[in-house]
């Protein structure tokens, strides 16, 4: 009887994992979770003490897709130095095809950090996050202060991946 319960429990867990879109690479799992803005703010506060890199992206954003592998690379380079990476998709939560596309994308990228998709109206997502356009990368220092907002809002000074590299190296070097 106990064995039957065990097998049922294991099957249920496996089913849940598949529904949540989990995939494992080595010892790490890739998931894409819906998150409301208030939940995200709590998550962010809980990461105080770490440097936090938040990459705002969407499946319809060509430069975001092109830059994503570099963010994964940065994560692998810095993950053991107190740096937390978060990918925040601002795809439309109502658009099931886009949500699935986003989930498949983070799986393919083997993005073993936190991958969220804003559980808000898409226009509200931008307003609440304080983002005008994407790609936009926020970097928080260990004290939880937003130190860099690297975006394309100024046509005469758009942020590049070099700027992200430089900002992150600067924060990591601070003790």
């Amino acid at each position: 009887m106990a064995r039957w319960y065990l097998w049922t429990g294991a099957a249920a867990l496996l089913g849940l994992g598949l529904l949540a879109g989990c995939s494992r690479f080595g010892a790490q799992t890739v998931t894409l979770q819906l998150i409301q803005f208030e939940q995200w703010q709590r998550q962010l506060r809980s990461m105080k003490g770490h440097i936090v890199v938040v990459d705002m992206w969407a499946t319809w954003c060509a430069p975001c897709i092109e830059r994503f592998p570099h963010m994964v690379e940065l994560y692998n380079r810095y993950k053991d130095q107190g740096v937390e990476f978060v990918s925040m998709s601002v795809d439309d939560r109502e658009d099931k095809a886009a949500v699935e596309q986003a989930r498949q994308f983070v799986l393919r990228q083997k993005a073993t950090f936190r991958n969220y998709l804003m559980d808000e109206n898409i226009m509200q997502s931008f307003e609440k996050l304080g983002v005008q356009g994407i790609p936009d990368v926020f970097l928080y220092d260990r004290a939880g202060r937003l130190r860099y907002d690297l975006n394309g809002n100024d046509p005469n000074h758009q942020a590049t991946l070099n700027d992200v590299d430089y900002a992150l190296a600067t924060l990591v070097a601070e003790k």
Partner: protein
Amino acid sequence: MSLSSAGMFWFFGIILTVAATTLVAGKYNPVIDVGMHAPSFSNLPATDGRSYSMSDFHEDVLVVVFLANHCPWVRGGERDLIELVNDFRGKSVRFIGIGVNLRPEDLLPAMKDRAAKIGYNFLYLHDPSQEIGRKFGATHTPEYFVLNKERRIVYTGLLTNSPAVMEAGAPRYVNGEAKQFYVRDAILAALAGRPAPVTETRAQGCTVEYTRRTT
């Protein structure tokens, strides 16, 4: 300790630059603001094979919209743009699409294909130098600018309160049926000599990619 004259020059130069930027920037636009004279352009090639300058247009209202073929937000909204152009046919209003992106699918040959395929009923210009985009402070596609007879900017931002993204060949309106028609209202107001009811909104779409200047 006293500042050298060169030091004073740079100090006040920076202060003036920051002040000037603050004075001219809109809420969302870092370069220009509503009420300012629109930047000009000259000899930009169009999909119709000719070249155009700002001085070629004499209509009472100009609508400048930055577009990019690759952008699903542009594709999602282009039918509404075409309809809007039709609605103002016979009125003193000119619509000008401008592309400044440098992705291969956004260059003039691809623009010509797109304009022909979809049946663009407005001018579609390309600026490979990207200068006109920088001058307008355009960072999104689509991003609209409505100019009055004096060529002052009276509105900048979204077409309506419900932008559309192209999904599986059909536009998906992110806020359902549009209820606020910002560009239409701004055109009507400009034609009537009144201020636009809404003057600036945050454009929703793809970010325009500018090349980094080396100087």
